[in-house]
């Protein structure tokens, strides 16, 4: 699993690098979505997690959830078009679990992509490390522990 500047990226997931979201195909046509450690580092302590409702269509690059941390709000943007199928109710009730476990208990939602080519533009496997290194360099991102 690549660990870059203190941020870990399981290599079986697909990543939307600019929007700091991960996706995991569930085998039934749906996809689990969550925030990466980079997203958490940028958000800091997540006090509020507010996704769009189940059944809502979303578009690539548009917000499908927001988080809040002490008067600062951030958008979580989608990596492809789709519809929200289910939400992680525990995360809504306890947003701070995402700070401790963004790949496990802190997953955000399950979505159904609108098109079969939804993975286009996402990175996975050996491409993860170089993609995040490049992003961190360009943005001056110090690391997940900073």
């Amino acid at each position, binding site marked *: 699993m690549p660990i870059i500047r203190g941020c870990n990226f399981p290599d079986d997931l697909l990543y939307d690098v*600019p*929007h*700091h979201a991960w996706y995991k195909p569930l085998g039934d046509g749906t996809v689990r979505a969550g925030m990466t450690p980079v997203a958490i580092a*940028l*958000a*800091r*302590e997540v*006090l*509020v*997690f*507010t*996704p769009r*409702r189940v059944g809502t269509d979303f578009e690539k*690059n548009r917000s499908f959830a*927001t988080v*809040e*941390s*002490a*008067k*600062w*709000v*951030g*958008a979580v*943007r989608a990596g492809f078009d789709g519809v929200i199928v289910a939400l992680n109710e*525990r995360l*809504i*009730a*306890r*947003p*701070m679990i995402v*700070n*401790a*476990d963004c790949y496990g208990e802190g997953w955000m939602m399950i979505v159904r992509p609108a098109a079969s080519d939804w993975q286009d533009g996402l990175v996975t496997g050996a491409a993860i490390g170089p993609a995040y290194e490049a992003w961190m360099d360009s*943005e*001056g*991102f*110090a690391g997940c522990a*900073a």
Partner: protein
Amino acid sequence: MTRVLRVIDTGLRPARWNVAMTAALAELHGEGRIANALRFHRYPESVLVGRHQALADAVEVGACRAFGIEIARRMSGGGAVYMAPGALAWDFVVCRRDVPAHRDAANAAICEAIAAGLARLGLPARYRPPGEIEVEGRKIYGSSGYFEGRTLLHQGTVLLEADIGRMAEVLKLPPDESAHKKRGLARRLVGISELLGRVPDPGAIETAVATAIAGAFGFILQTDAPQAQEVLLADVLFAREMSQDSFVFDATLPRAVRTVAGRDGVVSAYVRLHPGDECLIEQIWLTGQFEASPARAIADLEVSLRGLPVRQAAQRAFAALSDASVRLRGTTGGSIVAAIVNAAEKQQQAGLS
């Protein structure tokens, strides 16, 4: 390399359009399509609620309707504010790499710069963490923020003239101030005109603030007009989302937050329990429509409760808040303790479900 800060002024526009313009700037900047920018703008009489705030807890909706006052929902967090032409607002949208890396440090540096700019106008303005500026203990500036990816958006408002009376009518305030609502607000807030003894020139304030921000972060100022893509996206977001009553009135609320509203005011407690032992408090944050003196009392309390079992934390909080050296305005120690306990219980229930 010379770094440019565009300075634009969109003047007086409806509240919900202003929110859409803020969102458009954040989105375009996040996509790398616009440079860093400082947008000055003003509002007609209106009330802005925070992105995730319970509107009914914060706004006298009936009074707003009676006065024809628009209600809008901000992109940024925090509480409700009354806006009017006597307030000057701005969005400072900036790359994270151009300000201190840590977001809280960046926000502090921005507020320090703005305070320094206002001080040049003859105001003994001082930054008060986390995001306010005050003069002799009275607030003249408040701020909140929005972020996504590479972008930070600091949103602030300075009071030129404070219409305390109207503010008291349209905002819900701590009930212990309800009988003297106006006097309570006047103790906490003040407009620059009252401090200077004259109505300040908004242009002079804009210049002072822009110059101070540019100096603090090494920008070259460039006066500009809003770009077509900015206005176009703002119009689209306005039509699609920010103008809709569903966006303003139907925000999904954070269920883990305990809000105590009633005789003792509004207190929100955010509690994170220890991942390995859900009886222990790992971290706690307290906010609400109240004030504590000394100002550090609540922050110190939050730190002192870390690692304690919930019941023991409640006892310590009650003891600390009952101390004669601590004065609360707008709530009581009992309400704060109730908020802590309730938030912890909700967290525990969610953890067991």
